[in-house]
């Protein structure tokens, strides 16, 4: 059994004492209201106690943490008060991620996270092991997972494997972000967290007094109530500007140096300027491919690709970004790479019937009616006048309905089902038939009136908890039933085909496996 890297005590206590210290700091402030002198002392004391508690806990954590990689499982024994022994079968591992914050980079350590399909959170977190150990672990876990699938990789093979592990891996570079792409991505990405950070940054700049930000000369020039509105508008513009700058910096930091490589049948990505993130995506565990073309990027001909596996649990927001295989690239490059992973052929989609467009028109008419109605109520209650001008929105209804309609489509291919939707954030989902979990045919009352239906091919992908599932929206109801049946049949067919391949593979297992090892050895030698 191995222990964590000794520096992990320092790294863990530092990050923990920030948290615990903050907690005790707040506790200290609440516990001692009023006055200044003695309270500073008591608050400081509380913070010190907090840090001390954190350090002691982390030493105990380090002492009681053991892990081991066996031939077919990864074992972890951990816990200071409540002990937990965990065994993860190697072939069940979905993703292995390595994360390094700025602190752990300084200490030369890295956090390793291992994801399987079950459970509510990351199954194994090693915080922290040495950088080399992290890289080794990733490689060994992958080897182990693969060798385990070739059922008869036993002890005598294990020695072969060890020798192969020593040698470098043959990497094929699939994608590297270009400065131009990174620039476009940073400029046009809106990070939701950035608005908050932007606000905080702004309040620091202004010295916690928002009024200092408003240029006095500008406001003085405008008479009456106008000055107030100008001041507010000015503040909003500044706020947006700050949020935008922060967002650009965050995105730049997140995707700086993004590289995607392929080793055997695994994708491996690296990214990050200050914090380094890297991880593996096993190709045989891919549930869904998503090609997204967000609006400003689509106009420049750019798109993004996300590879979804079943590894991450819902609500693990930090991992959402790490699943993206390409943050931004020219559309044709994105499609080429996507085809590399899953050869899904053409993307000529079948459009929904014309009556779906009428449906969207009616829907937007209702939205406009509600907006106009709200405007009327507002006008009758406040000084706002000419509420009826809102009816001008009617001109947008046909445009919006058409855009919504023209951006939707689906295709049932040979081995994949494709579904596209969304104007602002157009996403095309590619689902292999053998990954389908269940097929849903849904009809709302409004869809039933127009004989329309939505067909969803549900997978175990963890991204669809938050994002969209692969849904063909508003197809003809009859066609929808055929579609459902077709996907079902194809699922059974593909599963049978895969089973055949596996049985055939088992027959030739031994020679093939030996061959591969030999060639890998000779090429790198």
């Amino acid at each position, binding site marked *: 059994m191995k222990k964590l890297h000794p520096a992990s005590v320092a790294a863990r206590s530092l990050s923990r004492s920030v948290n615990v210290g903050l907690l005790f700091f707040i506790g200290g402030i609440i516990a001692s209201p009023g006055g200044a002198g003695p309270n500073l002392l008591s608050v400081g004391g509380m913070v010190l106690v907090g840090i001390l508690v954190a350090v002691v806990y982390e030493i105990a954590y380090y002492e009681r943490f053991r892990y081991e990689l066996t031939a077919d499982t990864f074992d972890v024994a951990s816990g200071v008060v409540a002990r937990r022994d965990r065994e993860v079968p190697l072939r*069940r591992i979905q993703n292995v991620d390595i994360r390094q914050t700025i602190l752990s980079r300084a200490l030369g350590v890295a956090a390793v996270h291992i994801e399987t*399909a079950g459970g509510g959170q990351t199954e194994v977190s090693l915080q922290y092991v040495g950088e080399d150990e992290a890289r080794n672990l990733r490689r060994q876990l992958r080897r182990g997972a693969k060798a385990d699938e070739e059922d008869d990789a036993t002890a005598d093979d294990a020695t072969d494997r060890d020798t192969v592990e020593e040698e470098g891996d043959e990497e094929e570079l699939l994608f590297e972000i270009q400065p131009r792409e990174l620039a476009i991505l940073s400029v046009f990405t809106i990070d939701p967290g950035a608005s908050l950070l932007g606000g905080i940054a702004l309040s620091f700049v202004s010295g916690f007094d928002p009024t200092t930000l408003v240029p006095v000369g500008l406001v003085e020039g405008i008479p009456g109530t106008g000055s107030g509105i100008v001041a507010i508008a000015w503040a909003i513009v500044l706020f947006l500007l700050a949020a935008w700058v922060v967002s650009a910096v965050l995105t730049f930091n997140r995707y700086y140096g993004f590289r995607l490589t392929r080793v055997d049948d695994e994708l491996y990505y690296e990214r990050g300027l200050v914090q380094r993130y890297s991880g593996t995506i096993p190709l045989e*565990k891919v*549930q869904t491919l998503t090609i997204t073309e967000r609006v400003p990027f689509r106009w420049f001909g750019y798109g993004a690709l996300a590879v979804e596996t*079943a590894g991450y649990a*819902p609500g693990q927001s930090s991992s959402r970004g790490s699943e993206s295989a390409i943050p931004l690239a020219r559309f044709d490059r994105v499609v080429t790479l996507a085809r590399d992973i899953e050869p899904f052929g053409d993307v000529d989609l079948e459009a929904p019937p014309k009556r779906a467009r009428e449906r969207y028109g009616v829907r937007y008419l209702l939205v406009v009616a509600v907006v106009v109605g709200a405007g009327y109520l507002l006008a009758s209650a406040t000084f706002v006048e000419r509420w009826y001008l809102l009816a001008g929105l009617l001109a947008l209804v046909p445009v919006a309905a058409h855009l919504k309609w023209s951006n939707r489509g689906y295709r049932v291919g040979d081995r994949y089902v494709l579904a596209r939707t969304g104007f602002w954030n157009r996403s095309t989902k590619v689902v292999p038939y053998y990954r*389908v*979990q*269940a*097929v*849903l*045919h*849904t*009809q*709302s*009352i409004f869809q*039933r009136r127009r004989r329309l239906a939505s067909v*969803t091919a*549900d*997978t*175990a*992908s*963890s991204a*669809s*908890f938050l994002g969209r*599932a692969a849904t063909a929206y508003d197809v003809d109801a009859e066609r929808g*039933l055929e579609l*459902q049946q077709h996907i*079902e*049949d194809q*699922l*059974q067919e593909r*599963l049978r085909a*895969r089973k055949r391949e596996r049985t055939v593979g088992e027959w030739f297992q031994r020679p093939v496996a030996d061959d591969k090892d030999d060639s890998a050895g000779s090429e790198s030698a």
Partner: protein
Amino acid sequence: MERLNPRVRVVWLIMAVFRASLAGGFIVGGALLLSITDFWGNPPDLLVPGAVALAVILAIVRLIVAWLRYSVWRFEVQDDGLFIERGVFTRIKTVVPYVRVQHVDSRRSPLERTAGLSTVVVYTAGSRSADVAIPGLTPERAETLREELRRLAIESEGEDAV
């Protein structure tokens, strides 16, 4: 196509009455509170009768939906998968292939026990259809269905159902 046991309507109606009285209690109680205290300076006279009317309408809608749900609900144990059709407003037809079944439960709430009914729940690894419940089965039917699904799930053994 197999229908549910008609007794399930009683279960659903009782649940609907229970939920409707809970929601109605909140609406009417809130309105009463607003009209008694002077939190809202000068509430309109129609506030409390309006709230009562709203609660009654909601309760009636709930009861109608609970009644109609039975006529829509049906399921079938097909060759490759379990087919389920349900939904009063949004009609959903689901096919769950046996290969994807992770495990099967049968469960009985106190209300179902008094009505002599049982529910079978089928779990998959999917993100949207992770569990599919078939309510309103007699305990014997639930037992046979669970056994049947278990057998079919084992027969159609896949890779690792993910």
